[in-house]
């Protein structure tokens, strides 16, 4: 194949055995896709939709049970996080009746309810319990707790919205909808706790200054909408909070 300057845009993969989990520009990707004609240089590991995992990872499976397990994995993480918050000095130091005591009490209850519900709904199809890794979070420190909470909640909203396209049953789509709006309420409040008025993203005055949450444009196709993410992207972040052996994959989905 003739040299093509677009190929030069391909960044080096971070792990040679999982090139497709490395974000690459879509235009570069299509150069590779076209190169399968005749050439077989591209490694396809991690791309198949069977459960071809690295040892110790938990794949969520396929179909609607796969999406529910994906949600269950994320809710397990959130529930474990807020339960850990309850034992840290930030929370225990809050006086009864204060706003933040009430807020983090509710957050812990809601996420536990979500995780327990999904486990029950999945029955024998549920993935196993996951072991989190919260080593990067200081549960005695308000800022550390709030920043982690914000990361988890925004991620959860992006995850549910990005998974919607895969759901085949109207009932499950509605169920996901019932949970995601609560997560969005959580996320907005935590952002407001960190910086009041940042409920849809970082702001300066009345201007949304980044696409951390929504697309700030009022005219694009995704104008002022949540920046949902596909499962592989979400899990790349979620897995940084899960121990080896509890890392999650969603090989049946994007």
């Amino acid at each position, binding site marked *: 194949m003739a040299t093509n300057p677009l190929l030069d845009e391909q960044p080096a993969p971070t792990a040679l055995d999982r090139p497709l989990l490395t974000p690459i520009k879509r235009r570069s*990707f299509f150069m590779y896709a076209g190169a399968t004609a005749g050439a077989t240089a591209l490694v396809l590991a991690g*791309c198949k939709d069977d459960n071809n995992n690295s040892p110790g990872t938990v794949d969520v499976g396929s179909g609607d049970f796969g999406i529910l397990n994906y949600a269950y994995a994320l809710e397990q993480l959130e529930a474990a996080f807020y339960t850990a918050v309850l034992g840290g000095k930030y929370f225990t130091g809050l006086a009864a009746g204060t706003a933040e005591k009430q807020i983090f009490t509710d957050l812990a209850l*809601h996420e536990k309810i979500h995780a327990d519900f999904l486990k029950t709904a999945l029955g024998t199809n549920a993935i196993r319990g996951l072991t989190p890794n919260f080593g990067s979070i200081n549960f005695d420190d308000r800022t550390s707790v709030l920043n982690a909470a914000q990361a988890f909640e925004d991620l959860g909203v992006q995850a549910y919205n990005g998974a919607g396209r895969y759901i085949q049953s109207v009932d499950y789509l509605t169920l996901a909808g019932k949970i*995601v709006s609560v997560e969005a309420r959580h996320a907005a409040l935590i952002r407001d706790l960190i910086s009041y008025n940042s*409920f849809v993203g970082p702001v300066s005055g*009345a201007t949304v200054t980044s696409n951390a949450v929504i697309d700030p444009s009022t005219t694009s*196709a995704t104008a002022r909408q949540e920046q949902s993410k596909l499962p592989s992207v979400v899990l790349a972040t979620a897995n940084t909070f899960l121990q080896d052996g509890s890392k999650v994959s969603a090989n049946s989905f994007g």
Partner: protein
Amino acid sequence: MDFFQILNHIEKVDPEVYDRFDSRRNVFKHMGGLGKKLSAAAVPAMLGTIFNKAYGQTSTLPQIIIDTLNLALTLEYLEFYYYQQGIASGLFTGNDLNAITIIRDDEQGHINALRGVLQASAINDPTAASYDYTAGGNLAPFSSAAMYLAVSQSFVDTGVRAYKGGAGNLINDPTANKAILTAALNIHSVEARHSSHVRSMRRAYSTGTPNTNGTGIAGQDNGGGAGDPLPKSWISGTDSDGPKPIKTVANTAGPVGGPLTAAVYGAGTDATKYPAENNVMQATVNVQTNSMAPAGLTLTATAASEAFDEPLDAVAVQAIGRNFLSALGRTNKLFGS
């Protein structure tokens, strides 16, 4: 033919062309056999299929999708003009004015995006004149910041329930990667973020001091009782039937604001499919009794109701919306008039 040259040319007129194709994983399914199985003559047809799928925005969407999105659009216009007027009213200053400006801009973006999807099938811009925010004289939303926000909360919580109720209608979205369904979900969660902030602002204005940080004021279970004076940022029970603003405008017809906001948190047309917001049954599971509280906490029915928001069917949404139409709005046949 040079496939990549074609993509280059398309990219010049459509920079997002690469985003329109299937996810990378799916492309392997579709293109993986290219070298082995397909003859050169078959390639153009295969490519044509890929492009059709990418640009396969049907010239006419299914009617159920058009109707669902137009209901959403009608609500977005209702909110857009409400926030437009709120900004102009002088009720808010500083950070609080910034907040409602952000929300106004979000609604503008959502309107633009929905119109972009619906194209010629979109309703005409109803203009502000189609809406009567006093609900026929029952409310005085511009009499105070607190009153304004109470009505705001009712609008936005209706919108969240409407998007949730309508999402199922979008499940057979024919566009690539179900872009319309995804857009609706991505609008829905932003509306929920609005509700969270509006509720925080309502807690703030309970102090009587503008530009108070509402995250520092505790919300109460069920919003603290009649009138929902101290709402949490999530719906708690039925929020005691909502803000139920006290009627401040004398008129001869219509009840005090109660029924208007009760419908926002109550059951839909079919209470089994669309229960009230204090519901704790999800997919035949009682989510309160199903769960064990984290150590030291009590898992109440209220908490269980808060953990899930409820959808509302289009008929019930329209009934709420019709309270806020002027004569022109009814002439324009908004909200099923």
